[in-house]
């Protein structure tokens, strides 16, 4: 497959390298499994809540008798369950597994990482419970009440402590680009989370902080950790280094410098100083630089190896996610332009875009990461390969139906809302077919998650036939 030397010039001898990797894997096994188990549960909870919220567009009287099940609460619970439960816990799990391998050092204080996972779950249970009970801060992405936020701040601190100390004790001279992304995310997220949750904001300033946080949670947390994962997995599975390592660094630093002001474009047309909006639009368009750098790198690394996608479940998911990253990022830059935003703002178009980012990009990469990492955690192979194919196609078709329908429906909705001659009731009625398609897409994604969760459960229970060649067993590596 490849003839390039696969070990870094500063790598230790193979026996030492094997020992270091085994030591790193042992140290991360329990915390990563705890993060992964939790993430899978939150994926099921979150996507079920999402489907309930979507179905309410077709059956507005369904579950309307109790405040708990009203759209505003269910949809908010869905967002928090998938963003902070599924995506965040899975991404942290991947980072905790990946970083010790990349710095060739065991995870520092695995118990702190375990405690972080427990605290994170406590935050989610209390926070989503509060949202469903009607107690929220009323700000998108920041709905979970302030006192409960303190729990995740402590949990995140424990997590960051464990990871940062691991890096401090590294045995490598340089940082691989995934380490850059993951470390930056571990520093950025606490800053934006704590700042946005300070109980000092009000009025227009609060709206600005709200969207500064909301977009940065995507770009500086979910995107950063997802790209770290893709930069690790694509070369690993292909057995071929990333096409241009230099370009990957350009992508990282450009994201670091341009992303943080993107969020204010959510307030175009609002009572916010024009200069603030213009800076945000400029930063959003500047994001083309890191996106192009990353896209070119991923795609040229894959050139000549696309046939591998038929055999590798990891690559199938990760490459799909990487391609969607390019698409959703360029769409986001375009959406920030005033002329486009004038049509798409306050429509279903934005919902389609957000799902393409968190699901089509981040979640697809995460699914790929699970298929790579879990065999190495439980020393077992996925028992039913057919279920992986079902998972892939259900997930991909689900997000495709969801995104296309909301993009078309949202654009038509926005164009009609700008036409003063069209009554608002007619605008709403015209969106109905697209909302049905949204529910169909959501149902497909939920089906994909049920398949995935069932397979994951079989895997961690080590069910199914033992394969002739188990995943990287410690004994095999040592031999």
């Amino acid at each position, binding site marked *: 497959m490849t003839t390039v030397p696969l070990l*870094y010039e500063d790598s230790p001898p193979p026996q030492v390298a094997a020992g270091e990797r085994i030591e790193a894997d042992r140290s991360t096994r329990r915390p990563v499994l705890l993060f992964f188990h939790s993430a899978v549960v939150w994926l099921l909870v979150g996507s079920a809540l999402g489907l309930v919220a979507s179905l309410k567009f077709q059956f507005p009287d369904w579950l309307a008798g109790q405040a708990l099940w009203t759209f505003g609460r269910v949809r908010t619970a869905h967002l928090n369950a998938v963003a902070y439960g599924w995506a965040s816990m899975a991404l942290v799990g991947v980072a905790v597994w990946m970083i010790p*391998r990349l710095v060739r050092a065991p995870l520092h204080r695995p118990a702190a990482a375990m405690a972080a996972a427990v605290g994170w779950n406590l935050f989610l249970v209390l926070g989503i419970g509060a949202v469903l009970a009607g107690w929220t801060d009323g700000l998108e992405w920041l709905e979970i009440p302030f006192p409960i936020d303190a729990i995740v701040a402590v949990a995140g601190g424990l997590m960051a402590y464990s990871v940062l100390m691991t890096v401090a004790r590294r045995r490598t001279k340089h940082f691989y680009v995934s380490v850059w992304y993951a470390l930056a995310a571990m520093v950025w997220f606490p800053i934006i989370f704590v700042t946005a949750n300070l109980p000092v904001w009000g009025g227009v*300033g609060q709206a600005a902080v709200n969207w500064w946080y909301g977009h940065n949670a995507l770009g500086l947390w979910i995107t950063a950790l997802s790209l770290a994962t893709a930069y690790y997995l694509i070369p*690993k599975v292909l057995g071929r280094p990333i096409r241009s390592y230099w370009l990957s660094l350009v992508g990282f630093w450009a994201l670091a410098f341009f992303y943080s002001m993107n969020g204010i474009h959510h307030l175009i047309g609002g009572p916010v100083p024009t200069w603030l909006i213009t800076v945000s639009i400029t930063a959003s368009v500047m994001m083309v630089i890191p996106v192009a750098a990353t896209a070119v790198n991923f795609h040229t690394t894959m050139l000549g190896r696309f046939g591998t996608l038929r055999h590798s479940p990891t690559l199938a998911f990760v490459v799909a996610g990487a391609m969607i990253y390019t698409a959703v990022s360029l769409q986001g830059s375009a959406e920030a332009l005033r002329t486009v935003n004038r049509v798409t703002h306050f429509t279903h178009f934005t919902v389609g875009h957000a799902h393409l980012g968190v699901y089509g990009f981040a979640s697809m990469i995460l699914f790929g990461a699970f298929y790579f990492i879990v065999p190495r955690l439980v020393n077992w192979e996925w028992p039913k390969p057919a279920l992986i194919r079902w998972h892939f196609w259900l997930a991909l078709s689900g997000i495709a139906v969801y995104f296309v329908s909301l993009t078309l429906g949202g654009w038509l909705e926005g164009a009609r809302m700008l036409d003063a001659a069209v009554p608002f009731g007619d605008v709403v009625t015209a969106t109905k077919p697209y909302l049905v398609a949204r529910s169909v897409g959501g149902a497909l994604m939920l089906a994909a998650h049920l398949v995935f969760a069932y397979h994951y459960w079989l895997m961690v229970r080590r069910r199914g036939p033992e394969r002739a060649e188990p995943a990287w067993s410690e004994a095999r590596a040592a031999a």
Partner: protein
Amino acid sequence: MSAARGAANLCGAVSPVALVLLAVCFAGALLAGAAFAWAALRGEFTDAEQTAFLVFDEEDAAAARRAVLPPSERIR
């Protein structure tokens, strides 16, 4: 426009408490700049292509010698 007038306009346009956000952004920019300088001084940008091989370990070397995908990637 004088500096005082500029500051007054800024405070008039943005809630004074939102200036905390600007301070946080400024601190973040300093942090990013310091990280960038630190990386440059440590030689992270020199001989960068070699660092691309850090992702590999002895597992991958063995798989490459046999010219096969890792086992968990051959379960089509």
